[in-house]
């Protein structure tokens, strides 16, 4: 669908999008809002991969199109924390969304500090 194909653009949509009364992506909006507020990320990518998993048996009877997300987060808040601690910070922020029936079923995370992101970019270029 069109909405899906422009997800990349939507994820960079201005903030007002998240406060629209009848958003068609409430889960994505909640993720953006909570992570932006708590972690002040310099990079925040939200990829909705739900369509890739819609046929899984665990998704039987689930009508939500917002079940599988992949997040790339760069934040100062991750400094001097090991990966499990960083992931727990994100899980903690999205606790309600993950516990909800028909909520987030899978959450892939890449959590970096600004330096780690720079290093990664340099590696990818070389």
């Amino acid at each position: 669908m069109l909405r899906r194909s422009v997800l990349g653009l939507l994820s960079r949509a201005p903030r007002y999008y998240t406060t629209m009364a009848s958003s068609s992506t409430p889960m994505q909006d909640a993720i953006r809002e909570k992570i932006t507020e708590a972690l002040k990320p310099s990079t925040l990518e939200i990829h909705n991969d739900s369509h890739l998993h819609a046929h899984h048996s665990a998704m039987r009877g689930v009508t939500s199109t917002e079940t599988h997300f992949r997040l790339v987060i760069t934040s100062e808040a991750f400094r001097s924390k090991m990966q499990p601690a960083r992931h727990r910070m994100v899980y903690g922020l999205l606790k309600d969304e993950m516990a909800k029936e028909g909520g987030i079923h899978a959450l892939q995370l890449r959590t970096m500090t600004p330096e780690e992101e720079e290093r990664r970019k340099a590696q990818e270029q070389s």
Partner: protein
Amino acid sequence: MFSRTVFSRSILRQTAAAVARPTAAPTPAFRPFLLTASQIRLLSDQTRQAIDKAVGSAPVVLFMKGTPETPQCGFSRASIQILGLQGVDPNKFAAFNVLEDPELRQGIKEYSDWPTIPQLYVDKEFIGGCDIIVSMHQNGELAKLLDEKKVLATEAEAEGEEKKE
């Protein structure tokens, strides 16, 4: 006590035999994550004891959806494949299928303070979920950790197994 699925030797051979183990990159030493008492809550003593036993049942323990032979989730599949690629000794490995046991499925999330499956433990220490397993596999930290913990099948053993086929 939860039922344990023994790591299939055939799976290990398929994956480990074909691919050379990545050599450990010079990464900072792995610091284990320790659970604090406050993170273990809402869990009945009975369930916690059963999970304690499960976590301690082998040096390398994976809580997953499905079995090593037939994983029921792509993230569990990726995790088991990586352990195979790394050359984890089947005798030092145990997998637990959380789909078989609702108590374990819910309990392990609270026990580890980690809301998703799979979950990897090495020497009773929580290592992480699929994303962490993948990134540690890529950056060499996993090879280093498994080597330090002496849970990898030795070359001789691996060759011996190959010949038997």
